[in-house]
């Protein structure tokens, strides 16, 4: 127990918790994106995938949900605690500071993280629990729910903006989490991080495509 306590009480330990929980969520986000793209194959395909998840795969779905919830809580708590420590470490700011290496991804991790956390809550209330109904939604008809929601410009706009922050978060997070976990060759050149760039672009594009395509009536 003391081992776990001393691990968690250090900045390095919290950072490792953040990296591992982040990578778990990266894995989920890729699966989620691939699932969403089935909307382009029509109503039957997407709704049968949804029926599969809630039917035969229901136990697995719940295990995944519990793991994701734990990962999210660990990620947010470590992020919050590290942010408090980091802020306290520089009580007096510089009159002039010119950052040289920090990327737009690394600089927007905190604000982006807050936006994504709010988005996750909205998104679950919207499509999972159907508590928020921007348009009339029916349980089980994932395809129709998506079409009805994303024909509204403001709903599409919220999703599009959130996905920009997801892309930025992934760009820095995918790169820095594996460095945090001990992989070397951390290149500072922001364009020489091929895995992070491809991952961020693919996930951003894959998620953005669905609401935008629905909005412009490009979905069969």
């Amino acid at each position, binding site marked *: 127990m003391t*081992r776990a306590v001393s691990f968690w009480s250090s*900045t390095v330990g919290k950072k490792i918790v953040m990296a591992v929980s982040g990578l778990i969520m990266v894995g989920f986000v890729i699966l989620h994106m691939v699932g969403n793209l089935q909307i382009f194959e029509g109503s039957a395909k997407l709704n049968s995938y949804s029926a599969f998840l809630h039917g035969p795969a229901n136990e697995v779905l719940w295990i995944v949900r519990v793991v994701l919830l734990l990962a999210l809580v660990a990620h947010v708590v470590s992020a919050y605690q590290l942010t408090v420590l980091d802020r306290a*470490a*520089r009580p*007096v700011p*510089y009159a002039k500071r010119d950052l040289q290496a920090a990327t737009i991804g*690394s600089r927007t991790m905190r604000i982006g993280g807050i936006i994504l956390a709010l988005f996750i809550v909205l998104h679950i209330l919207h499509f999972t629990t159907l508590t928020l109904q921007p348009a009339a939604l029916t349980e089980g008809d994932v395809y129709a729910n998506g079409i009805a929601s994303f024909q509204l410009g403001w709903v599409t706009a919220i999703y599009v903006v959130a996905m920009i922050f997801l892309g930025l978060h992934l760009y820095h997070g995918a790169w820095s989490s594996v460095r945090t976990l001990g992989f070397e060759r951390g290149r*500072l050149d922001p364009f020489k991080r091929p895995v992070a760039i491809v991952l961020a672009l693919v996930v951003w594009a894959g998620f953005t495509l669905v609401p935008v395509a629905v909005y412009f009536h490009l979905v069969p």
Partner: protein
Amino acid sequence: MNLTLRVWRQAGPKAPGKMVEYKATEISPEASFLEMMDVVNDELTLKGEEPIAFDHDCREGICGSCSMMIDGHAHGPNQGTATCQLHMRSFEDGATIFVEPWRVRAFPVVKDLCVDRSAFDRIIAAGGFITAATGGAQDANNVLVPKVASDLAMDSAACIGCGACAAACPNGSASLFTAAKITHLAQLPQGQPERYRRVVEMVAQHDAEGFGGCTLHGECQLACPKEISIDTISRMNRDYMVAAAMSQEEKVGGGTG
């Protein structure tokens, strides 16, 4: 060259400080930044004003005392150099230059641009050493060290403990310093007995001093006058994870009792 300086002036540790403007006139472009500060201080002294206090010692980039945030860059705009290796030709004539002390809670300002970096000494004291057997020196090559390991150890050992990494870090983290000291010893056979105890205790001391955590912005690597890589932080984290998995007895290890 004629320059305008905006310098942080603070009479003592508890005194309030503020940015004060000074003119540096007829400065040679060949002068080093510290020589330019000397010229300004000479003029201040002649006028009967208190000269600007700043730390300096070797003036050749090896002691790590000349710590200044110059125009928003630790040790000035050039890479791989300390403030003493910065020359006025790196600036435009007529420029306004901000000069500030390191801004880290763990480095309290003593006076003007001088900060107290004893926090680094305490991190070293927490584990940045080896329990070497004393006695006569062994023959060279008695303990074999692979070339790659000795190169990596030397790269880390280049750290002069100037504090630029923590000063440049948006989180006020001294991870690069701590990691350099840890990985320097972790690469070498002499560093093995205390390897895992060292990483845990030095990281704990780093945190206890009030430094922040690493988010891998990478600012430290560009600020470092010795160009130490953030790879050292990855190596430190790897050792930290191994140490976390070990029992207390394993971690304490053999030593040279």
